[in-house]
Structures are given as C-alpha cells and as structure tokens.
C-alpha cells in the first residue's frame, strides 16, 4: 500500500540549484527519509538530521506491525475485551487514524489494515482496548507522515527552520524556504510518466501527501475487496498551523500533525467519490487536493488533472 519515490509523483524541483541546501538521508519504515535544510555548519546540520533519523528509528520500533514488540504488534494481538498500554506516539497515530476514518466515511481504513472500529482508545490512560478479535492494524498509511511531523519539530528545536522533510516523497513537510524563495519548489507529475510535470508548487509550512499507482499496482476498495479503478494518483496539501512549533507545545498538549493528516487523506482520496473530495476540501479551509484520473480507453491520451479546494495560505500553485 505504500507508494514511494518515483511513483509518488512528488519531487523537489531542481534542488541542486537551491542555495545552501544540505541533504541527508536514512532508510527506515521500508523507505528513505530525507532532510533538506539550510545551515552554515555542515557538521551541526548532520547532527540535527541524525537526531531526526534516530527519532524515526524509535517510531518504527513503536509503530511497525512487523516489529513483534511494538505497540501496534501488541494491539494486533489483543483478544476481545483485552487492553494494553501504548506510548504517546502510537496513541496519537490511532487518534488521528480514527478521525481520518470518520472523516472519510471509512475510506481511510484501506491504508490502516482492519479493525480500527473495534478499538476503544483511552487517550488519557494511553490504553487501547479491543472489542473483537482479529484487529490487524497497519499504520503504513499514516506512520510516515507522523514521523515527518515529529522530525520537523525536532529540526526546529535545533534551529533548522529552513527545511523540508520527507519520507519516500509520499509524505512531505515543508518548513520555511531557503533564502530568496517564497516556498520550497515542488512538482507534481504523472507517476506513470514522471517527465510530465502537472503542477509547480511553491510551498511553506505545509504538508503534502502523495499516493500514486504505477501500471499493475492496485489499491483494494475496503468494502468490496475489488481493485479501485479510475485513479492514477492523488495529492493532498494540509497547511501546518504556525503555532505548531515545538515551543508552543511545552504543556504536552495535543500535537498538530499536518503530515500525518495529509498522509491519511491522500490514500482515502484514491477511493472517495469526486463529489465527496470536493465537499471535504470545501469544508476544510486550507486543504487542497489534486486527483489524476486514469485515462479512458486510449492509453496515450492524457487525463486531465482535477483540482479541489485551494487558496490556502502559504503556497500557490500554477498549472504548467
């Protein structure tokens, strides 16, 4: 269900030409995480990036269903009526996932496995209770975005405010842009034809989620169990509230996780009806989405990119 790198159709445009940007990468969660940041001291920037990568590794140990003693693996083993304690990261992910599930009428469930409706979350006690057997969660559709959110907070703590963080380019979070730019230059392109750029974006303080299919891939519709037809890719932009910086969180209050939300919505937008996507974007100021339909019949014919929402603060888009 993960669609990374080339098939996310999301890239930094000509990043080598960006002044003073240093790039660091690290493999985790079955993808490559990257930090691109502006800082005069190479060693300091590397230390900050590695502190962020250590954080991703910790999150993977807590959130991966493939790690037998992770919080999620433990939740997946709960029998009906059983309860377990989880860490704050797992709880935050589950609350965001529950919200995305409700928000999208269950469409998001496709990327989180099955059984979310059978879990009772007790946020204050950091406990999770299963009401039925057979919970099989997979935070693949939200975990990378959540990791990107936390990495960005850490980089801000380190003073690397001009930065862009992504996990496999399916979850991207742009902080402030390099000197002289209004935003980080990003492109959306057809995952089946990456050379064809569809949109140029200039993005700051915004999360972008991407979900795309190459030929032969498929996403299964959660209700019918049948492959979804008609969508090649979906991208969702969610603005990051300015107050989401680490300093604003000293009270340990809830986290504003723009990248996790974008990550969750993007998979749902591969499934949801276009009217529903339009409604959701209309009612959610700042949320913007692009959907690339599968071309009809003749494969050489290019489908038209559909655009929803928009006029969000902090970024502009322009069709190429």
């Amino acid at each position, binding site marked *: 269900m993960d669609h990374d790198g080339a098939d996310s159709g999301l890239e930094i445009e000509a990043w080598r030409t960006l002044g003073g940007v240093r790039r660091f990468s690290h493999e985790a969660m079955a993808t490559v995480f990257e930090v691109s940041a502006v800082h005069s001291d190479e*060693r300091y920037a590397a*230390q*900050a990036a590695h*502190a962020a990568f250590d954080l991703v590794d910790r999150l993977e140990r807590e959130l991966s269903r493939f*790690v*037998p*003693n992770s919080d999620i*693996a*433990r939740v997946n*083993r709960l029998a009906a009526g059983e309860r377990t*304690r989880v*860490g*704050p990261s797992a709880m*935050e992910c589950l*609350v*965001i996932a*529950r*919200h995305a*599930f*409700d*928000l*999208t*009428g*269950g*469409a998001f469930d496709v990327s989180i496995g*099955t*059984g979310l*409706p*059978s879990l*009772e*979350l007790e*946020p*204050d006690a*950091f406990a999770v209770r299963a009401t*039925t057997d057979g*919970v*099989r969660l997979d935070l693949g559709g939200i975990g990378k975005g959540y990791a990107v959110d936390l990495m960005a907070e850490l980089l801000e*703590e*380190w*003073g690397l405010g001009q930065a862009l963080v992504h996990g496999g380019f399916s979850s991207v979070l742009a902080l402030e842009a390099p000197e002289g730019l209004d935003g980080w230059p990003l492109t959306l392109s057809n995952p089946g034809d990456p050379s064809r750029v569809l949109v140029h974006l200039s993005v700051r303080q915004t999360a972008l989620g991407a979900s795309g299919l190459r030929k032969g891939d498929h996403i299964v*519709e*959660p*209700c019918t*169990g049948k492959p979804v037809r008609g969508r090649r890719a979906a991208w969702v932009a969610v603005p990051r*509230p300015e107050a989401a910086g680490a300093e604003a969180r*000293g*009270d*340990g209050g*809830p*986290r*504003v*996780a723009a990248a996790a*939300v974008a990550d969750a919505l993007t998979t749902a937008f591969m499934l949801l*009806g276009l009217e*529903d996507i339009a*409604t*959701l974007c209309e*009612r*959610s100021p700042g*949320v913007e989405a692009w959907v690339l339909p599968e071309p009809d019949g003749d494969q050489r014919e290019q489908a038209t990119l559909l655009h929803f929402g928009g006029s969000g603060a902090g970024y502009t888009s322009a069709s190429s």
Partner: protein
Amino acid sequence: MAGDGEPGKTPAQTGDQGQRKLGRRDVLRGLSTFPALGLFGYAWNEQRHYEQAKMEAAAAAPAAAGDVQPINVALLGAGAQGQVLTDSMLRIPGVRFRAVCDIWTEYNQKRVVNQLKKFNHNPNAYEDYREMLDKEQELDAVVIATPDFWHSPHTVDCLKAGRHVYCEKEMSNTLEGARAMVAAARDTGKLLQIGHQRRSNPRYLHCYEKLLGEAKLLGRIVTISGQWNRAVAPDLGAPARYAIPDARLKQYGFKDMHQFRNWRWFKGLGGGPIVDLGSHQIDIYTWFLGVNPSAVMASGGLLYHDPKTHEWYDTVMAVYDYDTPAGPVKAYYQTQTTNGSQGYFENFMGDQGTLLISESETYGARLYRDPNAPAWDTWVQKGFLNAPTIQEVKEKTEGVTDVRESVSPDEHKVSIVLRDPYHQPHLQNFFDAVRGKAKLNCPAEAGYESASSVLKVNEAIEAKSRLAFGPDDYRV
C-alpha cells in the same frame, strides 16, 4: 476483508444493508460532525470526551486495578537511555514518577517531565540529585541512567538515603566504584538491580532454563561468538539554543558540550563500545555457561574515528577462556562502529547443536541441530522449540534425481517472544522485588562479576597480553 459488516458499529461504518459501504451520505455525516482542521486537538478531545462519557456511564462497575501497590520512583538521568527506561516504566502498573533529575535542565529534563505529564504524572524536576534526595522523602526507588562515571556516587548516595536502586550497566567505569556499590547495597539492605536486561527477557530465560538447562540441546558447548556492529554515525550534537552553560558542565565533570553528549567515548567517563555494547552480551556468555571467565586476550584500537574527539577504541576483538565443569570454552566477541552488518547476536555452539540468539525481537532465537545429534522431537512436542523449518534444498534439474548440494541442519525457531519494550521485564522484575514478590535477576554481585570481566578487555588491549582472572577479580 476480516472485520467487514461487524454489527454494532457507528453509522459511518455500517451501510443500510448491514455491510460497510462508502457513500456520500456517510462522508457528509463525518464532515458535519468533525471539522477537518484544527484537526488533531479536536480529535483528541472528541475521543477523550467520548471515553469520559462512557466511563461515567460505567461508573457503577469500579475498575479492578486497585490491588497494585504503588511505588514512588525518581528518574536520575533523563538522556536517551533514561527516556527508554521511562517509556517502559510508563507501561508498568503502579509506578508513580515523583521526580526527574538531570543536569540538562534546558532540554532532556524538560522533555521527560513533559512526557510524564502527558501520562498524568506530575514529577518535580531537579538539577542536583542531592537536593532531590533531601526533598523527596516519599521515594521508594531511584532509577539511574546517568553516564557510567556517575553510577557509583549516584547509586551509593541513593542507597544510603534508603532508596532501592535500579542502575544501568556498566555498573561503573572502575572496579573500585563497582565495589563501593556492592558494599552500599549490603550495608543498607536495599535492593540494587543492574541493567543487564537480557537476564529478564522471557526468550533468554527460556533458552537458559529450558533449552540449555533442562533439555541440554547443545550438548557440550565448546565455542561462542558474538558481535555488536554499528554503522558510522556522526557524533551526537545538541540544539545550539539549549546548550548547557560551561560552568555547570564543569561542575558535573564534563569538559564541554561535545564531551557531555559523547561521554561514552572518553576515558574516565565511559568505557567505549566494548563496555557500552559488549557488556550486555559477554554477560550472557557468562550467565549461560554458569562460570566467570578465567582469562581474556584482546586487540583493539581507534582505527577510524578522530582521536581529537574520541579516546576509547572504536574496534575491539576479544577472546575469553572459560573453564566450565564440562570442559574448556573459547568465546569470541567483537564490536566495531564502522559497519553495522549483521547487527548484534550471540552464537553458542555445542557438539549437538547451535543456538543463535539476538535481543532483537525481529530476529529472535534459532536452534540448529547437529545432524548426528539425537532427535529433538520430544522437545518440539513439549513446546520447547518449534518444529523445524524445511530448509530450501537446491535440486539439480538434470542428471540423477535427488542430487543435493549439501544437507543443512534443521532450523528450529524458539516460540517464546517478548511483546513489550526490551527493558520492561527487567524493570518489572525490579519493582516486583521492591514489593517483595520476586528475587532480582541481576543483583549487585552479578553486575560486579560482569563488570570485572568486561573492563578487563580494555586493560588487555593496553597491556597487549593475555590477562588471567583470579578469584579476587570476582569477590567483593
């Protein structure tokens, strides 16, 4: 898909025909109930209100969690390891955090206090542990995860203040320090658990008690090998704006911020990778064999890292001699910090089988039966280990049938797994002991013997010779 059509779900998940169905109506219902943004805070509170309402509704049936005797705990040392231990303790019922002490008040101390507040603890924060011991009169136990050179003074003072102590390994960077800790535990009668957490890991306990102890599946163990390899990583840094003032660093024994963050590499503060990593695994060699090593030879050096910013050896290879009642054993161990290939494991080889075990729960433990050893069917039936995985055998596609390249030994996995964070069972064992319900799995004496055998490696490297252990090396 499993879980489809579950009855009793919210309308958003259940369609009119009793099966889940995506529909515009459902989505709109979701949208009319929730705003999409301001998203997380709203979702969190929504969830919380829902749970509160439910709990109030169920208030007639009181929870049955009141039988756990609470233990008042202070965390001394809120760095990376302190945070790992905190994460584990938060999952253990009955642990009450009363204090957090760390000299990095600007960053790590704050992080841990905030984390604990999320879990409804309200600890007092301290920079000076003496002040903490003076003011916190309710403490039952202190969990210590400070740099190695602080372990001894911290532990001794906490024990003398009447607190039980869980102290991270290596017990101390000097034998004198470790000896003072054992003596303080004896004098005060308080508990001292050393953080060799594999000794409480159910998989390691199963291998020790059942596979090696009861079933003796390996036969006579003759050799052991093990490693912890790590890839190159930059030195640890710190967010510039949260740097500790120089005066405070010096007050607590650190030259500067670099040394504070990378104390493991400095002589007089830590012991280098052989002590940070090797001590866990060499402790297992000794625990499984049941005797302490009789000699060690070792080679090592600072082969890769910058000597200006690193003092201890980045590469160490050591060979221990053990004289067990069954006969002599040679045990090899290596640690290096330039290539992380194959990570960390311990490999025990006997004349009837091999046990390859790693603390990594993703890897687990595997046994290989020597083709000449008696069958293990009985032990498989008893559930000591899983039935063998059929090894993939390459058959030649031409010529005589059944010409095989070689016969691999059967691979049996050990089904006992740890479902909790790695340090949780060892901490649980400590708290159980505090409640008088268990014996410590790694008391001060065991920690001392382990420290003595590991610290000798650095000595042997320096001396460029084989060093023998006498009975005095393990006696306090």
